[in-house]
């Protein structure tokens, strides 16, 4: 079974802090994604990566950056956390050429910025 793990289930940070959210997948997937999930808005793509050291902006990249130094790990960075970044953050991965296009999700990190 594909497993996507996220470093924390719950996180509380103060405004202005630098925040790292870590995601690791164990199935050698090329693609990795970071979403944020807010009530009534569904999932919105922040950043995605097709390969090591490759990254592309999603729909809402402002205030975020990412790092992918190893194939299995994709980090989301909030350089200076703000209260409007309080949200549920979901990481996902998928095979680039599987033909199934299924994304596998981690359990999520609920981030609260005070």
């Amino acid at each position, binding site marked *: 079974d594909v497993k996507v793990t996220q470093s924390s289930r719950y996180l509380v940070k103060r405004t202005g802090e630098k925040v790292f959210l870590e995601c690791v997948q164990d199935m050698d997937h090329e693609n990795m994604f970071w979403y944020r999930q807010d009530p009534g808005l*569904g*999932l919105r793509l922040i950043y995605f990566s097709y390969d090591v050291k490759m990254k592309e902006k999603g729909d809402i990249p402002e205030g975020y950056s990412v790092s992918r130094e190893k194939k299995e790990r994709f980090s989301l960075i909030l350089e200076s956390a703000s209260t409007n970044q309080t949200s549920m953050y979901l990481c996902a991965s998928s095979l*680039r050429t599987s*033909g199934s*296009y*299924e*994304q596998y*999700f981690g359990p*999520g990190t609920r981030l609260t910025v005070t």
Partner: protein
Amino acid sequence: AQSVTQLDSQVPVFEEAPVELRCNYSSSVSVYLFWYVQYPNQGLQLLLKYLSGSTLVESINGFEAEFNKSQTSFHLRKPSVHISDTAEYFCAVTLYSSASKIIFGSGTRLSIRP
């Protein structure tokens, strides 16, 4: 650009009653379609998908969805729901040409009353 609309944010039903969760999409090109489910305090998981072939697709737990190209819809149905179906359901679409990137709807929260 493609988009996904889930017309109902919440659907309450009684146990053993039928249910339909509605999903419409807009796209000028051919798409793949998905339904994902998110059980309480978990990440998303794929419920079913339409890639090609038969327009009626089924999941292992009794849900089905029908791709209707003329109405640009992909509604999800189940003839008799169970308490364990309580979850949030997301419709999603991706383009043939960019199948790694998925656009999600805003979600429908299905609540089952005993």
